[in-house]
């Protein structure tokens, strides 16, 4: 199991968040330090500029500070915090794309590569991931980089489980379209 998603002690997180809800800033700082590395690694996957990563993390913890009293123990603290970071990141990415003009897989010619080469695989993945629609990219990152279950991703993204599965499926399908050499151009479910 991916340690990124499993390394936060759940009970101490709940205690910290309860303290934050009562206005304890030291508890907020402890929570911040506990999550900073994990969030920074997640966010830097698709927001490489450091000041953007930091801005999203700090905005996230401002929301945590303001909303801790609204946490109802319906999910893990980690899922709740990452959900806030997800929504903050989504807004930031959309704003960046509005400025820059987003590229997507439909704009890109198919690539040829040798799937046995790790370097080429890595380069291809970076290019392919950068061209996925934002929600699909984030879903893939939450599953494969952060190690979250489909149910956790549903909570983080505030979507039904079926939507999470569909986003993941379409992300995989688009990666294939981008790189036929990896697994053919047909959709995964159609290849049986």
């Amino acid at each position: 199991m991916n340690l990124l998603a499993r390394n936060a002690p759940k009970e101490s997180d709940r205690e910290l968040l309860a303290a934050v809800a009562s206005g304890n800033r030291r508890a907020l700082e402890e929570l911040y330090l506990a999550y900073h590395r994990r969030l920074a690694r997640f966010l830097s996957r698709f927001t490489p500029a450091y000041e953007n990563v930091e801005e999203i993390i700090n905005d996230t913890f401002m929301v945590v500070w303001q909303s801790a009293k609204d946490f109802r123990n319906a999910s893990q603290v980690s899922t709740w915090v990452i959900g806030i970071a997800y929504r903050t990141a989504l807004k930031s990415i959309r704003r960046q794309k509005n400025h820059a003009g987003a590229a997507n897989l439909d704009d890109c010619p198919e690539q040829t590569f040798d799937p046995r080469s790790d370097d080429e695989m890595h380069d291809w993945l970076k290019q392919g991931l950068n061209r996925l629609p934002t929600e699909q990219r984030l879903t893939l990152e939450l599953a494969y980089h952060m190690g979250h279950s489909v149910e956790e991703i549903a909570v983080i993204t505030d979507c039904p489980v079926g939507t999470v599965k569909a986003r993941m499926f379409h992300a995989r399908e688009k990666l294939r379209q981008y790189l036929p050499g990896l697994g053919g151009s047909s959709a995964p479910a159609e290849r049986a």
Partner: protein
Amino acid sequence: MSTQDSSQHAPQHKEVVMLIPWYVNDTLSDRDRSKVEGHLAACAACRDELALERRIHEGMNVDGPVEYMPAASLNRLRDMLDGKSAAGEQNAVEQPKPLGRPRRWQWLAAASFAGAAAAAGLWVAGHGLPGSRDLAAPVFYTVTNPATHPREEVVRAVFSPSITLVELQALLDEAQLRIVSGPSEAGVYSLAARSDLPVSTSLALLRRHASVRFAEGTEQAAEPGHAP
């Protein structure tokens, strides 16, 4: 698996295909895991799919460790909270400001300002501001503010806001420097030496990089322990 077998198991096949990513990251329930494993034993297409997804999963987790500096960003969060508290005390009825956006522009402006601030700051350090004791707290910061510089600092630098974490780390590795504090309000990082590499060499490496807006050695860099 034959075509006939596939059509007979099509509903389960589609369900399993959807579950494969979470089989790969090992977060499926026992029930779903058994279902996937049972299907995999009979379906070559899903085994291929699993192999491919494992490569993608592996490929997304090969990045080397990147150093993060939570202390500096935590300081900025404290500033944000203090600002919010001050605003709240000033006007308890007023809603909190919308989160977020000003910081980036503050940073950009600060980074652009840093070169000028450096020159101005150097002059101020040498001469002092006439009548400065009578002035209110300054609304700007300079790279020479003595209270902000740690003892081990040998270089002060301002980086382009567009520099990525990976680029920054690679640049610091090459120049054998590490961040000890920053960025300040003016966007200035304090850097310490990580090896015996002369500070002048580290500075030269920094200055030739397109994402370095400003880099200067400090007094400590000229001390006997540090080759200038």
